[in-house]
């Protein structure tokens, strides 16, 4: 399995488990959208613990999903970023739109409280 999903109230935890390159983003995009578009889902939390590589295709994937969540007036968060992934994500400016949390617990609390990024 390249992705695991877990729903906590209205927050979808998306645990990505593959290299986020062009090849894999093509394979998982629809699956992500299928889950994000479920009506119970408002916010998304990306758990990047098992992502060992990500390039600009991965950034494209994440920005695309960000837009879907935004359309639902939801928020996006990240946890468990390695230094390398963090570097790529900083280049992308994605942290202007979504927040990096120190733990799942913290992320779940903040996302559901409706706090602004």
């Amino acid at each position, binding site marked *: 399995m390249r992705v695991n999903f877990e729903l906590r109230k209205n927050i979808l935890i998306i645990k990505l488990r593959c290299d986020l*390159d*062009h*090849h894999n983003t093509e394979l998982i995009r629809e699956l992500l959208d299928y889950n994000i578009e479920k009506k119970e889902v408002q916010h998304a939390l990306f758990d990047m613990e098992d992502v060992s590589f990500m*390039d600009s295709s991965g950034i494209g*994937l994440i920005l695309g999903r960000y837009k879907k969540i935004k359309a639902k007036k939801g928020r996006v968060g990240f946890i468990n970023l390695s230094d390398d992934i963090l570097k790529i994500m900083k280049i*992308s400016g994605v942290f202007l739109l979504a927040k990096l949390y120190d733990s799942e617990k913290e992320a779940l609390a903040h996302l559901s409280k409706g706090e602004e990024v």
Partner: protein
Amino acid sequence: MNDFVHLTFNASSDNEQFIRTAASAFALRLNPTVQDIYEVKTIVSEAVTNCIIHAYEENKEGVIEVQMSIQDDEMNIYIKDFGCGIDDIEQAMEPMYTSKPEKERSGLGFSIMQQFSDDMTVKSGKGEGTEIRIKKKIKKEE
């Protein structure tokens, strides 16, 4: 005699992971830091992905060449395709510019390649394919 490897392969997205692994395996003889390995992988991943998506528009029959060589503590990387070419290189290299927003491209490929390289030159023209030459200094792992 400096070590070199020339690779020629078809424009299949299955080859993206292959070329990353090959690039890091080639760099290994310089005993690179983990960070430099990551950057080398990212550089070739971005460049080869561009050949697949832009140069050949996902036609798997397209042919991609990657050449790697080592000179002292520097790695030279050369990526070439025989695809559609780039009309306006300056525009293409702008951060966030992409000709394929409908494919969710972020337009950051060239910016990332540039940030991770010590030197990068792009040679291209409409219908002439694209050649990218990169130099990257490799720091040794202590």
